């Protein structure tokens, strides 16, 4: 029993093991940093932004699609949030509007991919340019400083320090992960996502509303993207036109380190959860260990290639 449980979840165990080893290495190389709790609290405040994107993207990839537009959807949602907050002074209205913009962007992606039939990788590259372009045109290249957002009642709810220690965004990250885990593993919606990514024809024959589910998956990605951008705005009390740039590769790396298959049909939220933590701690770990920041990308590369190679070998041996 114990052995079969281990076998079923060995991917999750494997990646958790990888995280542990990484932390132990950093503890040895940089004990003063990695043996104190401060670094972990700082991780909890910085990791959730990209990690929430990775959670949403996991569902998109399992459904057999791709979303490359999220960095720009972040920008337009964050712009909506910050501008509306500046003009109305009401963070709640700004938040709701930003989430609507995110969902709208997801809906447009879904429509182009599912109804018009453009492959998702191409459609979302297009939308990535479109949203970035639109945002830059409207904001005329200027940032929005929203210092007053720190005084709002919503601020502590999203990025406050719970018990004056734990960053609230870490709890949001955890909560979203648990919710998406239950959706993917225990809900018929998640079941539909798996079968659509696995074999669309099967899903259709067995009565799944394929178009509806695929569009909804894009919408949830848009929603989570907007949510992440609002968290960033709250945390930084600022919005800038290049918001979201630089997240693209890190987010994909988190998903693939987590063991989600690029071919669709398979993937784990637990894997992405840990994968995004791994990606999130590397930079601080490398620098505090006394190496230059230039090493960070190299190590990302090694970890991504090594982990996906291990998964590929396991797949070949049908061990997964």
């Amino acid at each position, binding site marked *: 029993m114990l052995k079969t449980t281990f076998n*079923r979840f060995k991917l999750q165990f494997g990646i958790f093991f990888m995280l542990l080893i990484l932390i132990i290495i950093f503890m040895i190389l940089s004990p003063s940093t990695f043996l104190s709790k401060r670094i972990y609290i700082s991780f909890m405040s910085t990791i959730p932004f990209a990690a929430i994107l990775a959670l949403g993207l996991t569902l998109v990839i399992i459904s057999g699609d791709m979303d490359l537009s999220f960095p720009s959807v972040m920008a337009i949602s964050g712009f909506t949030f910050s501008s509306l907050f500046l003009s109305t002074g009401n963070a709640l209205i700004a938040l709701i509007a930003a989430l609507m913009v995110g969902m709208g962007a997801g809906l447009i992606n879904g429509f182009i991919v599912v109804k018009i039939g453009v492959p998702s990788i191409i459609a979302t590259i297009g939308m990535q340019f479109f949203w970035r372009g639109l945002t830059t045109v409207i904001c005329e290249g200027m940032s929005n400083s929203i210092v007053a957002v720190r005084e709002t009642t919503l601020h502590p709810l999203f990025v406050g320090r719970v018990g004056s220690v734990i960053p609230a965004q870490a709890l949001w990250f955890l909560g979203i992960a648990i919710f998406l885990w239950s959706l993917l593993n225990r*809900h018929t919606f998640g*079941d539909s996502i*798996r*079968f659509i990514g696995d*074999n669309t024809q*099967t899903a259709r024959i*067995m*009565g*799944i509303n394929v178009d509806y589910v695929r569009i909804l998956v894009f919408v949830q990605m848009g929603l989570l993207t907007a949510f992440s951008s609002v968290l960033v705005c709250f945390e930084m009390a600022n919005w800038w036109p290049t918001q979201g740039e630089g997240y693209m590769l890190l987010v994909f790396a988190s998903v693939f380190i987590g063991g989600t298959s690029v071919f669709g049909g398979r993937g784990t939220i637990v894997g992405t959860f840990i994968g995004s933590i791994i990606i999130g701690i590397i930079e601080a770990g490398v620098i505090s260990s006394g190496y230059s920041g230039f090493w960070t990308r190299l190590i990302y590369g090694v970890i991504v290639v090594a982990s996906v190679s291990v998964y590929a070998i396991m797949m070949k041996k049908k061990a997964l």
Partner: protein
Amino acid sequence: MEKLIQMRGIGKKFGEIVALQDVDFELGKKEVVGLLGDNGAGKSTLIKIITGVYPFDGGEMFIRGTKVSPQRYTVQEARKFGIETVYQERSLGERQPLWRNIFIGRHVTNSFGYIKVRKEKEETINILRNLIGLKGAGISPDSFVGMLSGGERQGIAIGRAMYFKSEIIVLDEPTTALSLKEVEKVLTFINMIRENGKSCIYISHNIYHVYSVSDRFVILERGRVVGHYRRSELSLEELSEKLMLHAKSD
């Protein structure tokens, strides 16, 4: 014997081409009927009329005693009557575990749409053991379909159809591209269909596979029924001769 399907004088044309002409066909309860004939003889057309894919042009059809009109008899309607076609490759998700494949589209859930996983796994074990007799061999509800052989996959699809109360299971060339050992398994599953009180229409052009499991044979040729035999009436050799004869008379 109770008749599940009765067709009288069924005809079907595609434009000028006559696909079926004056076809009589019956299927009884707990009966396996082998539908034989060369390519283009009309086997698939007949099946598609029964499963509601094509409307028929002439004649009449009764399903479980109810007369059906060709205009209103659709795939959904056929399913309501308990008719299900089993496709080998198209109906299973390879990267998903068995229990998800059994319940896809028909999950047991609470009112929020959350799946009762434990219950579904128990039922899957039931289906594996009792409905299709797949025992041991390292197959469990958590096994992935991708790890199963072609014959076993047929078994899962057949078991699923039986579990969801299909009365008539249509198998379209289920043994194509399977090894001898796998064919053996599929034939066992077909016997299980009868043992569970269900009926089966089995299309094949391989009479060696059809002969051992069918109660009756219907031979189609150029859209007409040219032969109709019970297994008790003739040996495999005789059936083989009949088929050759019909093929030569072209």
